[in-house]
């Protein structure tokens, strides 16, 4: 299951066990869960906040590359999504 999250046609979404929210006080996206919080760095926040269950991996990467006017993000996004799946942050 862990490997297939990174197939191009898969559209990952945030797990219902977590809530993603922007926190002004921390200038960061955070993941909230029972009695806990993960503060995300900028790239993690940008990726996770785009995991809406509709964007496929290919579209997600294209969106990020367009937003930040760059290319070659695919490998980083894949690596992050693998980790996020292991942490049970995302489903698909």
């Amino acid at each position, binding site marked *: 299951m862990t490997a297939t999250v990174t197939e191009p046609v898969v559209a990952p979404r945030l797990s219902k066990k977590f809530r993603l929210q922007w926190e002004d006080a921390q200038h960061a996206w955070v993941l*909230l869960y*029972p009695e806990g919080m993960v503060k995300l760095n900028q790239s993690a926040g940008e990726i996770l906040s785009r995991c809406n269950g509709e964007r496929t991996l290919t579209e997600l990467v294209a969106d990020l590359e367009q937003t930040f006017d760059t290319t070659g993000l695919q490998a980083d996004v894949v690596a992050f999504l693998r980790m996020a799946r292991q942490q049970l942050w995302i489903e698909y």
Partner: protein
Amino acid sequence: MNDTTSLLLQPAAQVGPPLWLLAELTYRCPLHCVFCYNPVDFAHHPDELSTEDWLRVLREARAAGSVQCGFSGGEPLLRDDLEILVAEAHRLGFYTNLLTSGVGLTEDRAAALKAAGLDHIQLSFQDSTRELNDFLSHTRTFELKQKVAAIIKANGWPMVMNCVVHRLNIDYIDRIIDMAVALDAEYLELANSQYYSWALLNRDQLLPSREQIERAERITNERRAQYGERIRIFFVVPDYYENRPKKCMNGWGNVFLTVTPDGTALPCHTAGMLPGLSFPNVRDMDVKAIWYDSEGFNRYRGDAWMKDSCRSCPDKEKDLGGCRCQAFMLTGDPAAADPVCDKSPHRHVVTAAVDRAQGQLPAVHEAPLVFRSPEESRRRRAITASVR
């Protein structure tokens, strides 16, 4: 304020926001747990903040950057304005947690809390000797937990089960884990009792032996392998069995802000016991000022307060000298190293308690268990003198 004072009150560099707000709504509780961490003199503090006071605290804390909010007690369900407070916390963007024994969580109340936006419920085992027997015989306690757990799941809440582990129940840890799985809990906290407040009074009866702890850890690991992703199990070893102290509250005034029923703001729920330190009340001071500017919250921030032995220690960043309350309770000096540390000149106090725990339980007529109750609370005040 003279220059020396203002230097002393300088907050540590880059103090972050009070991310965790623990709202202890009341000390009232239908239970009589022998390990309760509410202060032993709780009956002398019957005053409770009003609904309006709590609403203001929630707004101020959120403005200061708090994001996790725990409603606790005592039993928070005894406040009939709980739904109002949860609704406001939810509206403000808090992740809202209810820490409850489940006593009083009816279907109606659960529905109202769901509508208010409650995110999560932590259900604790209410555990005393009699209830332990109930639990072990799978009668009353099991039925209550089953009913409450079903209500929690029916509302779609994630559920953390919390069980305070001690000498009298640790040998049944397999049954506790199996019950949590049967009740469909996502998380199980097997939290060994920490020896503060009522648990300190009962320490000799509650501290497990080394053999008991090792067996419980082994069984916990076996169950983890067996159940896999179905449940996440946390096992917290009693710090008396460690050689280095815990980084208490993840650092004094670093993450946690507790507001007690009468409005006293504390860096942890037991810090009120510390001598020579005044803590502000939310009735008199804004949460932001409490967090960043008050003497109570700045006193043990960072490492400037440490004695030389701690300040020169290579591990000081790891544990920040341990717990100030434990240092005070066991050595009389809140600025001493936590005597759990094997570099502490007071470590022998912890070692003596651990040594006693390897033997037989003291006979009940020599040392009866002290149950938390308002009557018992009124009979006792400071406990530190008797246990040192």
